[in-house]
């Protein structure tokens, strides 16, 4: 029996029959699509219009030939490109690190049994629900006290490190000490990402075959060998889910960046901060604002359109 037949049977509706209820159902669904897409649609149309055009035409109507322009996107790309690179330098390591830590923690807390284990699990999971306001002032104190650039100086000169990115030659990475604050932000996001990644991996590891792990163990395999040979290869689908979900979370964050990147701007600004500054001006150039919103959202939109089902899995696990 196909999935569709199955569904049809369970809701008691013959899919092939056309009846008024079905028509109303689809009309509602399409109306809701219009509602959910309207802010994006009117934003995109506005971003493609000249200033004279968007002030006079309805926001959802496509631009006329004379009123069409790509200039807002040019301005937005120019203003946001370095911030987007910063966001990539932030989000990629922070996402990979918190996924790895989450996988380790979940393995240690799921595929072993010891007293007090659930207490530790509870502490991990409670970390998901912390309102970040409760840690903001300590965070700003901590990163004022810890001089990351100085600490890393023996092993890594941040200025040299930044200059070594060859493809991005046009972006001046080399001179600004604020780049240390991106490392601070990576550490912070990694730490606060661990609770949710642990939860996601734990849900997955609970379903792994206990017999298989137990058999490997009786064969004398160490915990590390079992993780590396059995658990890690089996976790790849969950890594995809976790990386995609966590990437959007880190990319979309504004609050930590406001606190940890000094003065909230400058060459270390991440995409959310740069977009807020671009749109916070007094001049109401809505077309540039909308173009900026699309440019800043592009990576997450892309991830969502390409891997929407994996993102949804991360969402469903976030409970």
């Amino acid at each position: 029996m196909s999935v569709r037949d199955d569904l049809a049977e369970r809701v008691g509706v013959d899919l092939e029959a056309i009846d008024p209820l079905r028509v109303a159902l689809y009309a509602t669904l399409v109306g809701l699509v219009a509602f959910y897409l309207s802010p994006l649609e009117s934003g995109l149309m506005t971003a493609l219009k000249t200033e004279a055009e968007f002030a006079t035409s309805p926001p959802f109507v496509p631009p006329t030939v004379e009123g069409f322009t790509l200039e807002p996107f040019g301005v937005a790309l120019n203003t946001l490109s370095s911030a987007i690179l910063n966001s990539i330098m932030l989000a990629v390591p922070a996402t990979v690190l918190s996924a790895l830590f989450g996988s380790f923690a979940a393995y240690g807390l799921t595929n072993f049994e010891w007293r007090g284990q659930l207490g530790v699990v509870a502490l991990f999971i409670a970390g998901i629900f912390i309102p970040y306001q409760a840690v903001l002032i300590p965070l700003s104190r901590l990163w004022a006290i810890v001089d990351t650039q100085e600490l890393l100086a023996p092993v890594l000169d941040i200025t040299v490190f930044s200059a070594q990115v060859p493809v991005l030659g046009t972006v001046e990475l080399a001179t600004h000490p604020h780049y240390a604050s991106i490392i601070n932000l990576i550490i912070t996001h990694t730490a606060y990402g661990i609770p949710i990644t642990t939860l996601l991996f734990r849900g997955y590891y609970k379903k792994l075959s206990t017999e298989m792990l137990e058999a490997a163990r009786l064969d004398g395999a160490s915990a590390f060998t079992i993780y590396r040979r059995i658990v890690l290869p089996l976790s790849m689908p969950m890594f995809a889910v976790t990386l995609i979900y966590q990437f959007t979370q880190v990319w979309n964050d504004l609050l930590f960046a406001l606190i940890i990147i000094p003065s909230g701007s400058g060459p270390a600004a991440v995409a959310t901060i740069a977009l807020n500054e671009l749109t916070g001006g007094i001049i109401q150039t809505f077309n540039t604002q909308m173009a900026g919103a699309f440019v800043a959202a592009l990576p997450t939109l892309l991830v969502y359109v390409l891997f929407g089902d994996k993102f949804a899995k991360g969402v469903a696990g976030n409970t």
Partner: protein
Amino acid sequence: MSPHILKRLLDRLRDDGQPVRTDGGTAAAGSETAGSGFDLGSTLSSLRESDAVRSAPFWLPPFLLMGFFVYGAISWNIVISFTDFGGLQLPTYDPSTFDLEMYRRAFSDGQFWIATRNTFVLLISFTGLSLAGGLGLAILVDRGIRFENWFRTIYLLPFSLSFVVTAVFWRWMYNFDSGLINAFLRSIGLDFVASKWLTGSIDTGALGAIPLVPDTFYFKLFAVIFALLWQFSGYAMVVYLAGLRAIPNDQYEAARVDGASILRMYRRVILPQLRASTVSAAVVLMVFALKAFDFLYVLFGSNPGPTADILSTMMYRQAFSANQWAYGSAIAVILFLVALTVVAPYLYGEYRRGEL
């Protein structure tokens, strides 16, 4: 291997809802004879001990990193709230000077109560509306429709966007002269409804005589709630959809055989079984509502004014705009306690049901 371990193994399999397989049974029978020569008690306890030790390298480093940033920072924040840390000087942590002055200050601060009231209005109306909207979406999407994936993807799309991006879109949506909402209202002849959604208000007239109804009703907070509803109802939909799909098909079948109408079937058979989905979605939505700071910050800066100020914007303003660090910490502690009253019962319930 002792029978205890076997039993535990089988229990775990059952907990996961997987059928107990027959090959598990034969393997266990073999291991039972192999383990018969051991002293059961000491084998068991040494195994437990070694499990705690063997697992530590995996969970302890992430735990320390997370614990330092989450629980260390919260404790540090509580300590700061007992000090007088403010202005540009550095905090002094002298226990003899610790007091609750900042909390007294909060409780006698009119702004604090306004922000608390707005926080609860946001929390309750946003969560309630998102749950209702999400449940509606989930039921529609679950009716065996074509292109289900497309519809689902579109409804969840706003959830993948950042607050900064959605706030920029909604500032344009709410624009008085050319925003989509007013353009739509005008196009269907409702010009008089078109308003300045982010700054305007309406006189409640005779309704103002009812207790709790203000004389002037400001749209600001509800404009924010509506936009957040747009962004988060897709999330509630995903959670409810998972709940609906977990209900066995024969229950739909039984309701149909009984001749129950669709409406009655949902009310009597389906909705009561969605309690767990409702609870988990509500908790997460409330946490998002407490985090709505980013959205308000982009729209209104750190001071949204008394009609939309919430505890998280007030905390940020006191600490990072006014340099009233200790006062900001105290507000943060109160916000944390509000979150705790939502989350702690939920986690305890999960623990009791063995779902942690």
